[in-house]
């Protein structure tokens, strides 16, 4: 009589008892049914009894998602092409812009992108307006990294952190192995400064400078109907988030050492106007103070201020300033100060290594060292680097530009006067309710301006005037 024999697995060690074969060494002849195994019988590999055996069934089918995790394999296969390749480190706007400029120039050049994030393409400025545009974080992705890499013919190593650069031997050190490069472009971006607040772990405290951090914030925020968000730092990022959150119906407390928001960028009058508008929308402004401690209990934060007040909040966004990511460069012997230092060829202190975007520090036309954490400079910088690599000696000119602040409650456009230019003064040129136009004059010449409300539409005209004057 043919019998459908069954198999049983030891859940402890994975040994399989096959009724058809039995376990002759322990005295179970072939064909011994599991039910007939004596209770004293022991698993030959780990010594448990049949109680720890279960009928073997196939596990839930699962499709392995390993295509992109085989990091070392890809480094291995890349080894032989990479020595001729241009390698771009980073997966943000600077990196992608750089690659499209390189591609325009040469269709066959091997290009490799190595980035610690996914590399998915999104417009970072939209992070601070997404709530009111009712965009889920993932909807901000315009095209996946894999698709963009295919379009541009780039080899992509996502979720891979570059740990060190051996510039003498032109090697990159990754957790997945070493890789040779020919030319290297650092597009490593920046991060919000980390401040360890006394009394707190990091729960409930967010620093938002990329999509992943924003996603994590929204995951927590979106489960609450109305949240109270404390924001430390009323700079550009702090103000944009404050406006977006309050307009979406959340409570916002804005904390800064300055009395009024955006005071480093705006003339006092306009900064005061912004404070008024924010307060009328319900933002509570805690000026002239900072956070002295943060305590968390029951998913709530108690934020203690230096002025003795306390704020009960669900979250704290720490937005005290961007810091270029310089660790990798510094560790690798590339000159850095606040950022990775570049000359007007966008070259770092190491041969064949360029840098672009938020990670860089420049010397402006007035000889000042400046950071330019904006999109527009990236476009120009990418052209310069692509040119340099193609032996076209173009240079980057680092001029002042218009900064647009995305606070729909009071739109703002500012062209800050050159650094160290403090001998002039701001003058109110025009004012209609919330719309104001102020100009900065030095020795009878306009060197900067600040516009709010409907006047921001004329920012370009104002900017032309400054350009003409210089």
């Amino acid at each position, binding site marked *: 009589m043919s019998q459908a024999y069954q198999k049983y697995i030891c*859940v402890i*060690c994975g040994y399989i008892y096959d009724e058809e074969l039995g376990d002759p060494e322990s005295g179970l002849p072939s064909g011994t049914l599991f039910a007939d195994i004596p209770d004293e019988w022991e698993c030959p590999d780990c010594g448990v009894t049949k109680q720890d055996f279960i009928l073997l069934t196939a596990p839930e089918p699962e499709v392995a998602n390993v295509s992109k995790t085989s990091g070392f394999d890809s480094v291995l296969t890349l080894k032989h092409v990479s020595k001729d390749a241009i390698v771009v480190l980073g997966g943000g706007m600077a990196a992608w812009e750089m690659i499209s400029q390189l591609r325009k120039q040469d269709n066959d050049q091997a290009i490799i992108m190595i980035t610690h994030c996914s590399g998915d393409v999104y417009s970072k400025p939209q992070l601070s307006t997404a709530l009111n545009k009712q965009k889920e974080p993932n909807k901000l992705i315009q095209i996946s990294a894999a698709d963009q890499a295919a379009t541009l013919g780039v080899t992509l190593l996502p*979720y891979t952190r570059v740990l060190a650069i051996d510039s003498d031997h032109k090697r990159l050190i990754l957790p997945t192995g*070493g890789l040779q490069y020919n030319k290297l472009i650092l597009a490593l971006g920046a991060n919000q400064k980390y401040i360890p607040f006394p009394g707190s772990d990091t729960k409930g405290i967010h620093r938002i400078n990329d999509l992943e951090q924003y996603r994590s914030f929204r995951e927590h925020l979106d489960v609450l109907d109305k949240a109270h968000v404390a924001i430390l730092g009323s700079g550009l990022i702090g103000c944009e988030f404050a406006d977006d959150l309050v307009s979406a119906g959340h409570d916002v407390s804005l904390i800064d050492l300055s009395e009024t928001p955006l005071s480093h960028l705006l003339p006092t009058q306009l900064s005061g106007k912004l404070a008024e508008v924010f307060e009328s929308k319900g933002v509570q402004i805690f000026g002239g103070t900072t956070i002295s401690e943060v305590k968390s209990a029951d998913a709530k934060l108690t934020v203690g201020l230096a002025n003795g007040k306390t704020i009960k909040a669900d979250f704290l966004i720490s937005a005290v300033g961007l810091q270029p990511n310089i660790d990798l460069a510094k560790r690798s012997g590339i000159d850095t100060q606040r950022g990775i230092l570049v000359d007007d060829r966008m070259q770092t202190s190491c041969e064949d290594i360029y840098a672009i975007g938020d990670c860089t520090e420049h010397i402006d036309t007035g000889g000042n060292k400046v950071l330019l954490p904006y999109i527009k400079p990236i476009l120009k910088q990418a052209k310069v680097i692509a040119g340099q690599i193609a032996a076209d000696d173009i240079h980057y000119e680092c001029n002042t530009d218009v900064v647009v602040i995305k606070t729909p409650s009071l739109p703002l456009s500012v062209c800050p006067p050159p650094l160290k230019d403090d001998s002039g003064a701001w003058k109110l040129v025009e004012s209609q309710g919330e719309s104001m136009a102020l100009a900065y004059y030095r020795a009878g010449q306009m060197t900067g301006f600040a516009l709010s409300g409907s006047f921001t539409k004329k920012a370009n005209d104002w900017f032309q005037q400054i350009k003409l004057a210089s």
Partner: protein
Amino acid sequence: MSAPMSSMDFDSTTSISDKFLIGDALLERVKKIVDEDLAPQVLAIDREGIYPKEVMQKLGAAGAFRRHLPSLTEDGKAHFDEAMRAMAIVSRVCMNTGFTMWCQVTLAWYIEKSPNAEVRNKLLEKVACGEVLGGTALSNPMKHLSGIEPLKITATEVDNGFIINGTLPWVSNLGEDHWFASIAAIDTDPTRKVMFAVDCSSPGFSLRQCAEFIALEGSQTFACHYDNVFIPKECLIADPIPEYLQSIKAGFVFLQIGMGVGVIQACSDYMHEFNQSLSHVNCYLDYQTDELDQDIKDYIAACDVLATEIGDSSDRFFVDILKLRKTISELSLKAGESAMLHGGARSYLHDSVAQRKLREAYFVAMISPSIKHIRKEIDRLGYC
């Protein structure tokens, strides 16, 4: 027999930091112990399953088990790079002993990170100096947390402790007088788990030697049977465990790397040796000594950066560590295979270094977290 330094020699006039070596002096001492005490026993360990107890004690007395424990270092910092290098020096000659060393330093790491002062006071120094030897049974819980298999141990809460039941198939560096760390789910609430230190001589606990392995036979690897074993509260390492596990994971995985580094360095030694007579044919092989030497140099450079960041308990950092760990598995396998091919028929002899290193390399690739486990975990964490 040279008398190993034991806690008996502890002289109250010398401070702990004078007694144990650090930095290059430690690594030189480890090398000396390896050359003089370990090297002569390698075949017996591998083939006859001799457990290198004395070598372990000497390594502990030298200070090789404590460099990653900030509460015991001279500067209050964790020197994972030194822990890795010490293990590599040992593994270059005998990875069985490199592995028992991993069991030991990892047990010490768990205790160091435990919020329970009682268990720290009771065991940390003893494990760190090698007076108490022991291991870690975290493979099953790690695989459980990655969704690979159910947790095999249960705990019933009672006054002053827990009653533990269940079986683990293989746990190493154990013996009657050893300790190890284990995780169990509470029977009434399996979502709650506890981690604790187990004395192998506890009533109801038994070690069973069943399986025979292709290498690592001298690692004292046993099936662990708990039959109503009482664990007192003072032996609790963590309850609850989620945040605690997050804080030990990166160190746990990083510490394994020294095994692979040693294996690869041994393969390189072997290949260089055979190239003296066979370079005219070996040059036709795919993986050459210069490439391997460059790979291991790059790899150590990567380790040195990540070794300084083990305190980072984010998933993001853990993925960097998992990738580093996967790479050492892949490099070990490649190096082992290449060593075999470089030596030709000589590699096929029973006592050849290459075949032993190849067998050891497979262990690097399959001990939890194995290559497949790592890939699954990186996928689970959403970084693939």
